[in-house]
């Protein structure tokens, strides 16, 4: 390492007490204390102090710090007491590979006289680095979640906040021995609003779940959703939607690939030029009024009364940065919608009926499919395509692996209308709030971001 980099640890770094409750940190002053400390952290009460300056520590302090953090980052497996649970989470799923294991603290640090100063600085720097990683690791939020299967059973797993939905799906593939097709998805259902949304593969599960309220009835389901990547398996439905269905069904594989290349492969993403009449439920009213809506990359627009469809006349109805699109269940009854083919746009945090939710209703199931998935294209853009490509790669490797070793179990029951009527079969609560009790060290904490006041 370069000389000038060696100087950097000597910068004076002012230390201040951390204030966040529940964050795991270090306690005590003396070096010995670190080595022998009993890890007894109660998140709410612990006084969390960062060392005055990492640089001011002696070498053996750092060793102790690293060792301590190392021991903390190997929590026991959560002892799961769920009735239906058959597999408990393997540690590999919840833990990132530990740098500590790959690089044990060098033992020569106690003999500083025999080591050159540079290498001393080097090891010190390494340790600081390591310590920082440990600190980061310790701050990682983890949740224990229960995922409902399509057969009514459930699986419990631990997810940390760095795990994307893709990784969680992979874990579920291992646990369920399903056919690993690209259609498998995790989706949330909200029985109060009667809505459902499939999580996108790049989203982070813990972050998504933190939008739920504490006593939420929401559930997570693992199921096969044929519409998950329909825009890539049948791009002609979206990009040639004005054509008659008969000629778009005849389209061959090359033509599909060309459509994908044209709309997703170029330097810019092209959103389907969807437009048509949708019924809008006006704020706080029971009436659904028909209006002409136009989808653009920048949002959904409507044609104001007496105006034309030209771009400059369009009025913005909603933009996609802060809202997600949800499909609905039985809105004909719940909100007296003209049809049951409704979708809604809302901020993920909103969990109750509110005038900040936009309700829209389509004429038929096909239009609903077009609108919902086209909005996903507009919102996620090329990320969606990358997700699809990753899912295809994943499916092909997993399928070859499983087919080589043993026979497929029969594919999971195809839930024909699961998109619209998802939770009739599911009953139990999905998220366990008692995650902390499973862990001795207590560095897992769940922070509910929507709380307005701090409870004592």
């Amino acid at each position: 390492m370069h000389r000038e980099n060696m100087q950097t640890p000597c910068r004076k770094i002012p230390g201040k007490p951390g204030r966040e409750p529940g964050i795991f940190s270090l306690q005590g002053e003396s070096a010995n204390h670190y080595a022998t400390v009993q890890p007894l952290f109660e998140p709410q009460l612990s006084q969390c102090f960062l060392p005055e300056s990492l640089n001011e520590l002696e070498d053996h302090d750092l060793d102790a710090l690293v060792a301590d953090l190392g021991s903390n980052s190997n929590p026991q497996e959560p002892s799961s007491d769920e009735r239906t649970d058959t597999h408990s989470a393997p540690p590999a799923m919840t833990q990132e590979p530990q740098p500590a294991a790959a690089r044990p603290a060098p033992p020569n640090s106690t003999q500083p006289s025999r080591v050159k100063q540079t290498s001393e600085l080097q090891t010190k720097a390494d340790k600081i680095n390591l310590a920082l990683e440990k600190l980061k690791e310790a701050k990682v939020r983890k949740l224990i979640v229960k995922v409902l299967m399509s057969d009514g059973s459930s699986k419990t797993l631990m997810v940390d906040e760095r795990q994307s939905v893709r990784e969680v799906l992979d874990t579920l593939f291992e646990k369920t021995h399903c056919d690993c097709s690209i259609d498998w998805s995790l989706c949330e259902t909200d029985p109060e609003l009667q809505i459902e949304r499939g999580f996108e593969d790049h989203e982070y599960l813990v972050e998504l779940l933190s939008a739920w309220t504490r006593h939420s009835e929401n559930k997570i389901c693992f199921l096969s959703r044929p519409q998950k990547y329909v825009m890539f398996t049948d791009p002609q439905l979206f990009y040639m939607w004005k054509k008659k269905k008969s000629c778009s069904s005849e389209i061959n594989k090359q033509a599909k690939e060309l459509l994908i290349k044209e709309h997703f492969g170029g330097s810019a993403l092209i959103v389907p030029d969807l437009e048509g009449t949708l019924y809008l439920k006006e704020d706080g009213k029971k009436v659904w009024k028909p209006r002409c809506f136009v989808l653009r990359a920048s949002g959904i627009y409507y044609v104001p009364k007496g105006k034309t469809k030209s771009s400059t006349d369009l009025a913005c109805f909603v933009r996609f940065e802060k809202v997600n699109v949800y499909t609905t269940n039985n809105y004909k009854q719940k909100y007296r919608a003209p049809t049951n083919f409704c979708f809604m746009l809302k901020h993920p945090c909103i969990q109750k009926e509110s005038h900040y939710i936009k309700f829209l209703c389509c004429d038929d199931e096909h239009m609903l499919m077009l609108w919902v998935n086209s909005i996903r294209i507009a919102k996620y853009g090329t990320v969606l395509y990358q997700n699809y490509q990753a899912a295809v790669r994943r499916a092909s490797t997993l399928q070859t692996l499983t087919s080589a070793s043993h026979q497929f179990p029969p594919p999971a029951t195809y839930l024909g209308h699961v998109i619209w009527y998802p939770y009739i079969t599911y009953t139990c609560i999905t998220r366990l709030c008692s995650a902390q009790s499973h862990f001795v060290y207590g560095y897992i904490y769940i922070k509910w971001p929507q709380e307005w006041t701090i409870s004592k």
Partner: protein
Amino acid sequence: MAAWDLSVTVEDLGSDAPPVTISVASDLHVGGVILKLVEKTQIKRDWSDHALWWEQKQQWLLRTAWTLEKYGIHADARLLFMPQHKPLKLGLPNGITLRLRASFSCPVFQTVMGICRMLNIRHPEELSLLRPVEEKKKKKDKDLAEEIYDLTEVPLSSGTLKIQIFNYRLSEKLDCNRLTFFAVSRPCLYNGMPAHFVDSPQMEAIYKMLSVTQPPPAPEVIAKQYRPASVVDKAHINGRWLDSSRCLMQQGIQENDRLWLRFKYAAFYDIEPKYDVVRLTQLYEQARWAILLEDVDCTEEEMMLFGALQYHISKVAQSEPQMLSTNAAMDDLESALMSLEVKMEGENSSASEFNVIVCFRPKRLTLKGYKQYWFKFQDTSISYFKSKEESIGEPIQQINLRGCEVAPDVNVASQKFLIRLLIPAPEGMNEVYLRCENEQQYAQWMAACRLASKGKSLADSSFQSEIQSIRSFLAMQKTNSHGNAPAGDESINTHSLVSPRYHKKYKPKQLTPRILDAYQNVAQLSLTDALMRFLQIWQALPDFGLSYVVVRFKGSRKDEVLGIAPNRLIRIDLGVGDVVKTWRYNNMKQWNVNWDIRQMAIEFDGNVNIAFSCVTADCKIVHEFIGGYIFMSTRSREKSDTLNEELFHKLTGGHEAL
């Protein structure tokens, strides 16, 4: 064979000089004629670029081995002996005019290749030349002589290439394959510039003009430019494209004539900011003008975003040195320590009170008025207290701003600094207004709120730059609200960022908050990223990439508009004003041009045949557009980076053979 007299006008002798007469026989080849001519003039100079132009036939005699008989030249032929490369005034997409030497003898396609090589623009097949729209010259404008940047001293394009290859051979001893690869697709750069721009400071300055975006134009300049009002207006510009298969001389272009260089095909292949500095800049300028002049329609929201991006790009371009991308990979330890430092500082700042008093009003609870509280910003939350003294205890309320919407409501003139927060909660959105006392406080709190909404704490390194960008934007509003403020570096009239439609609709100070609103999502982009974002949004517009031509379909009695896109043709009924039919190229079986009656016939899968004659553009232009787009779609990385010129001419040419 009998000798006869052939008179040739030698351009270099001056326009008044009589033609030089030489004695020739019909079996003399063109090279021999030139040799005799040069001997007779007794001028010693480099004649290698000169060639004979046959005026009656509008044809260059470039095959020096052909005899006069084979060309069919007799004593009555009017021949002109002149250089093949002549100066041309070239208007670039960014509005700058260059004077440079271009080939008047090879097909325009190659001429453009030569120009692009000189200007360091990759993928010249996407560009072409067109005759400019005549500007109505007013007397007032006369004294404003346009500045023209001279590049005529640059050695001819083929020469430059050789020199570059030679330099490579000397210095790096690359093998030949690699060499051509470099020469064709990745021009070798010195100091980030092609060799011929390094010669002098003047040349370097010109390169900077090419590769750095122009500041936003004055609103009057935008208003003065020609704006197409309808699809038919837009169709007229496409009649101006030059024919790619014929040379400039054949199309009546004279020395020192003015032409425009523009991106013609909306299929921009393999943009690589590292190599495409000039290409990216010029593409952005073309896109910006297309937006400002409403060549491509967009919604009001999109216009505000384009405005915000333009503002950001011009600001970053001014402050950022020429280097477009600097990715100094930080050492592991270094970055670790940096993050530690930031973290510590973060704890520092979030622990110490963000000592400002902000007035606060939860909208629906109280009808009017703001109440003063002591506010504290911590991580991504704000807490408020009755007073500073009570801030040690429990706050009245703590609000997490993660995922919330932050909107400005500012009027500098009336000293109104409001931050509108829409905070998501399970029951819906909570609307909260924070009123700041002054600009300084507003900038700080606004920046903090924005970072928090993205889940970043105040410790984030972008905090200071966020504050800075908010302040500079406020400064803009300040100068605008005082009417004719002196034009400083910081002040940009917001009317410079949007099309004239919005000049009428909004005053500059009404536009500022709208643009500021859009600006918060792009303020952190680097110059390259901002340029790319602008281009992406432009390309995502529904009407992007459509070139219109007014046509008359076979069997129809009225004019209709044909739109040519990178992947399809559309038919627009002028009566309905909307697309009535779409044909995709991948369903196209073949297309035919009847050069005699100037009609095009296209056959699609499933026995779909269309035929039309072109009204506002020659059918060669339409033919070239379609063939050109087919050509653009054949490009792929696997097929090497060399340009398949032959294929282009095969797809777009064809009528010369007849």
